[in-house]
């Protein structure tokens, strides 16, 4: 299909891109912008590995067309650390052993961020409910829960 010129605001920067209208946001951030932190594990919206934030809300970028994301604030995992300083969730994930293979980590952290942004003191069950759509096969989620709990108490 004929390419369209679009502008995307990703991690605070604006990018002008010519993309085919059927291209997903995941394809565009990975292939056109080189932001490969968002991962494809299923391509059909079942696993959450492709999660990015649009205007602060987690979305499945494998099911979102890039052209739909115009004019919105897109945050990928690469945009989370500020001036080389890791986000408290990133630090907590490392400290609490919440990362093993790391393939689900980007989506997991971004989704956790949206949970904490909406509700800074979530309960254990609220965190687990919130992360339900992000599959992890390595950790059993135990250390992920600990990490999000720690970050929610302001541990940095």
């Amino acid at each position, binding site marked *: 299909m004929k390419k369209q010129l679009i502008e995307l605001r990703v991690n605070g920067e604006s990018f002008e891109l010519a993309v085919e209208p059927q291209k997903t946001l995941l394809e565009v951030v*990975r292939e056109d912008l080189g*932001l*490969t*932190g*968002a*991962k*494809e*594990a*299923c*391509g*059909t919206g*079942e*696993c959450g*590995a492709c999660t990015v934030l649009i205007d602060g809300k987690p979305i499945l970028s494998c099911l979102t067309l890039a052209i739909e994301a115009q004019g919105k604030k897109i945050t*990928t*995992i*690469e945009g*989370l*650390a500020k001036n080389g300083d*890791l986000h408290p969730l*990133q*630090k907590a*994930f*490392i*400290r609490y*052993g919440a*990362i*093993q*293979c*790391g*393939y*689900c*980590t*980007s989506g997991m*952290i971004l989704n956790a961020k949206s949970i904490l942004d909406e509700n800074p003191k979530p309960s254990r069950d609220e*965190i*687990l*409910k*919130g*992360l*339900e*759509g*992000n*599959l*992890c*096969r*390595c*950790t*059993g*989620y*135990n*250390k*992920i*829960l600990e990490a999000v709990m720690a970050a929610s108490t302001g541990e940095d």
Partner: protein
Amino acid sequence: MEELSYVGKSVPRKDGVEKATGRALYTVDMVLPGMLWGKILRSPYPHARILNIDTSRAERLPGVKAVVIGKDTLGIKHGFVETPRYPPDQYLLAMDRVRYIGEEVAAVAAIDEYVAEEALNLIQVDYEELPAVFDPEEAMKPEAPEIHPSHPKVKEPYKNIGGKTESGWGNVEKGFDKSYLVREDRFEGQLRTHCYMEPQATLASFDLSGKLNVWTSSQGPFIKRAKLATTLGLPFSNVRVLKAYVGGAYGGKIDLFSHEFCASLLSIKVQRPVKIVCTREEVFESARHGQPILVELKTGVKKDGTLVAQQVRVINNSGAYRGSGVVVIFLCWGFVMLCYRIPNLKYEGYSVYTNNPVRAPQRGHGAPNLRFAVESQMDTIAEELGIHPVEIRLKNARQKGDILPNEDSVRNCGLVECIERAAEATRFKEIYGKRKSQEGQRIRRGLGMGVSSYFSGSLIYPNTSAAIVKLNDDGTVSLLTGALDIGQGAETILCQIVAEELGVSMDDIRVVAADTETTPVDIGAWISGGAYVSGNAVKMAASDARRQLFEVAAQKLEANPEDLIAKNREISVKGIPGRSISFTQAVAASITKRRGNPIIGQGHFRTMKDIPAHPSLATTKGRWSDNYAFDAQVAEVEVDMETGQVKLVKATTAHDCGFPINPLLVEGQIDGQVSMAQGHALWEEVLMKKGKTLTTSFLDYKIPCAKDLVESHYIDVITERYEKDTPYRTKEVGEGYVSGMVAAIANAVYDATGVRVKTFPILPEKILMGLKEKRNKPR
């Protein structure tokens, strides 16, 4: 004993920052200039003769750069096992016949995935369908279609036998005669799958010097190199397999696979990089899943519960080629004989060809199914004899110092302590068997125990791990290791060892890993020997580097090397503060005084050093492993008596892993295995119908999600320790702890409901059926 600073500590992952920031590059992320995309055409039939393949229309499609089929290969077969008894049996692209739905028939390289996909539709393959068989017991019957007519097989009265293991000792018939109670049960495992989040993916780039460079999502580069080189007809040294981060494997990424071969072959053909990433659907439909195992178990015991004799018959549905099927029937023997003392044993295991996709190891490789069978029956026997489940396990448990029938020693077995401590921590003796008191309640609680044991490294190609520890001018250290971190934390624990031996911080160590060209050989992350074998190789290399540093420093400081200590990149004389030199100075001195020697430490390690080879897969004769991990696990479940739903509430793992090099990583391994056990025991199953996979997505194949989280408790039973300058013994923690837990879950369900489910997974309908049967025949 000297206090340790890094080993034994919960040090955060070395690769944590890269992974937490999305900077870690996995094979799926790799891109090279001029890269093409590959796609694979697969058989739609479970068994068919290939009459003709016409690729001409695909080749003419604009954007298609190459098409390869079986006749473009050297026609070299390969196998997970390649021995005289079990010669390779699988082509990487089908030649004249396909034997399962999904078998690779052709591959295309094109400018993008869409063109490649379209090209597949233009390849015309003429098939002649052949009769197929899917069930292993059907396949064993004389009237079953022959899946490998011209291939040497094990001579058996049964058909389609790809492999057989026979072993035993004593006389089981006499043993059963002498037994007070003899029970016979049959347990059926299901087909389950790994669900690594990163799909199978490969990028191959053949360069003009004649070298093939390959990034692939794997469990170790050296076995991939060996098999790629062999099947492509290249010298080993012309194939370089390099590190990329790996998004999970769990046993599913060991062997050479067709997509890796095809990407390489296409790259050689077109002299451009070729990348193949399988879709999730492809992974479900045609990648290798775990081993579904049937266990027929006959056990005789004395009145007091002491085991007298055990007869075990295992049937494995290996799929269309051997895959790891002939290994799993050997391993199942091991998983019978490790945990309990069995005076008389007769074991036979069959690996049976069927027209299903090929199977791979999956975390535990046979142990979960085997322990499910043995531990379930153990509880039944205990109940029939009126003995407590904990008592019957303690009575029969493997003891420290036992010599196994294959002459391996379990010199450091902590199984008894595992059982006792797991029971104590869960108040097992008080809580177990309270079903009657819950009569009438909708939600009932139950608990169950399972024990298991797992080997820690064995002799399989490449049989060795080596390592290099280099000192840098600035006093930092570089570790060169062939070990591949697949999430288990290999690089982290290896750095802890270097840090401990050299007195440098974790941040002072740079790692170059898993590159067949630049790093020393390594056994790979699939034989449960990383902590023991690769760890000791690294320890030796670091200790060699320290010895060299101390030699130089001793001269400078006018002291004996034995009186020196290394800490914070400095070498000082014990007890004399201030008398020290930095690593930087020592390296400079070494270069000046020792003819340019920049200090490079080397190490290598092999398990069972004097043993020539792996034990016989046919007879089990020969030594198997230096160290065996043991565990006792307790599951606490809640069962909804109206719906049959089971909730795994709490998991307790008491385990003897020797000693944990990194407790945080060990906990992570346990949690992951508990979670996998939960899915395995309660709901996961790859459903197939006539060779066709029905569960092709995460919606059809449910794995545990965050809401299914299980409270996980750990009890370390320490049986070994780490000391500087001597090789240490430790055990595996990566795959043995699925097994005790699946068994514990089954036993806990029984404790809650009185229903003994002998087929996995324990679906709600099976519990409801069991409850109905119980109601219909009241005692």
